[in-house]
């Protein structure tokens, strides 16, 4: 299945890119498994936040074909 993965702020700099279009072999894998597939050499930061299709989600959230997954550090707006 095909997914879009986005990274923001310090995590974007850490990963080295803002967005990836990628193929994930299995429907129903979790957000953390997508991270592991794309960033095998990078440990998942403990304070990371996840959104799926612009809604807050968890690392265990199941990913479906066409989803947009975003990984980012704690927010600091306002």
């Amino acid at each position, binding site marked *: 299945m095909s997914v879009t993965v986005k990274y923001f*702020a310090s995590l974007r700099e850490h990963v080295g890119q803002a967005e990836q279009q990628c193929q994930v072999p299995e429907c129903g894998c979790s957000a953390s498994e997508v991270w592991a597939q794309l960033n095998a050499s990078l440990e998942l930061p403990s304070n990371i936040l996840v*959104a799926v299709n612009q*809604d807050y989600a968890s690392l265990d959230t199941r990913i479906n074909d066409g989803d947009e997954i975003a990984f980012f550090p704690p*927010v600091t707006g306002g």
Partner: protein
Amino acid sequence: MPVVLQEFEFLPYQRLQEYEEQCRKPGESGAAVTFVGSLRDMHEDFPVDAMTIECYPEMALQEIEKVCDAATKQWQVDDYLIMHRYGKVEPGDALVLVAVWSTHRSQAFDACRYIIHYLKHKAPFWKQEHHGEQSRWLQGNTDDKAVSECHG
């Protein structure tokens, strides 16, 4: 009830006046409470020359609208205007405007405070401070204990 993400400088009190004149019905609300957040030139011991605000725009709009929806369910809110900057910002620039209109002041104060608190904790924006060649990402927001204690 607009929510606006703005890349370029805005003058909050001018925008507020324009909105009052163009979109608000005179006499409809008895109270208006406004919060304006601006960039300081010093943060703790770090002199700030400029700031970059990064955002996830589609999600930021949705999250701010969710916060405003929650506020309008909890308090009697006649209208609101929310603006948030992103991109390159200089000290003195307005970063965020939260304006709430209500029948009575207590409703407007509470709703305004709730909106800015949850906007800061939910909307996906990230601040990076700059001083000369140095840059640093902020790691977290200051907490508003009064709201946290009231609303969890």
